[in-house]
């Protein structure tokens, strides 16, 4: 079975994209989940602050999302640009 160089390069780009997004999805998932869990606990303790707590949760989750976005960007780069 002869594998051409150009074919292997595309293959590697696809594997790289898979690894980038696959592993990169772990962190934001765990981090945002933890933030949301604590937010629920906070609302349970102080329901009248629900609006403030939810807003803070979303801000914190947005920051946590950022590295997931980096992974998505690198994956898209590998899929469509190189």
């Amino acid at each position, binding site marked *: 079975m002869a594998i051409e160089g150009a074919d292997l390069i595309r293959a590697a780009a696809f594997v790289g994209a898979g690894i980038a997004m696959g592993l990169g999805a772990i962190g934001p998932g765990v981090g945002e989940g933890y933030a949301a869990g604590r937010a629920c606990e906070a609302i349970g303790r102080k329901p009248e602050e629900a609006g403030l707590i939810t807003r803070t949760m979303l801000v914190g989750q947005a920051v946590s999302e950022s590295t997931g976005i980096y992974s998505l960007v*690198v994956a898209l780069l590998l899929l469509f640009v190189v």
Partner: protein
Amino acid sequence: MILDPPSAMKIASFVGAGLCIGFGAIGAAVGEGYTAGLANQGISQKPEKSGDIVKNMLVGQAVAESAGIFALVIAILLIFMESTPSLLNAASLIGAGLCMGLGAIGSGIGSGFPGGEACLGISRQPAVSNRLTTSMLIGSAVCQTPAIFAMVISLILMFTKFTDLPLSPTWAALLGAGLSTGLAAIGSGIGGGMAAGASCEGVARQPETFGSVTTTMLVGQAVSQTPAIFGLVVSFVLMFKTFPESQSLAPAMALLGAGISMGFGGVGPGVGNGLTAQEAVRWVARNVEHAGLLTRTMMVGQAVAQSTAIYAMVVSLVLIFVV
């Protein structure tokens, strides 16, 4: 099947970039989520301080983000850099990607601890919020050190010309160099972060102990960095020692094994040293008259916990020099 060098370079840079940002995204996100969670807990305890708490949360998350940004930079560099094509340079690119990706995990997670504890601390003691932010920044900054070690090794791997060395077994040495620092940085990052988190908690509970607590934290963090430094040493040896050419698999696997040994071997002691430092710092805050005794006990305990990292380094060096 022998790859032509330019193809091998492209393959290695894409896979390396994927590994780099894939692993590297994990730590910062987990740490930032942890910080956000504890920030909300603090808000539930003191809603009127939510402004200060959110500000502190964002600052703490920014420090945790830096590890992720290092990983992004290395990944983009890997995809777009032009370098002399050679199979050996291809191996070094994968090593670089692994190194930075793995190395960012620990520092990202670790920097989440002081961020979160500082936010909780502001809810407990709003009057000392400036001191808490300072504690958080000192602790998080030291916590980023393993990620910086990993970035240094990545950059060396990417930009040093390895072309005139024999392909086998040097390819394994370069991969091993990446694994050695990358994996060992995980333990040191998390451990340093645990110590920093305890210092923020301690300063919140007893603000007047800021000096002793910070000193104990820095000593504890410094010892926690030792596994990452062992990893760095083994990486440098693997990168810059010339190995005699050999076509058989055993010498190559010995060098890869050296990297794996020191890499994984640094994880446990790093976390363990962090656990020790965390409790020591916590109790220095509550019992500052005995800070000296606590710090000494912490150092003895950390030294014993360090033992398996030393065994791992010995095995690595034996694999590199003896067999």
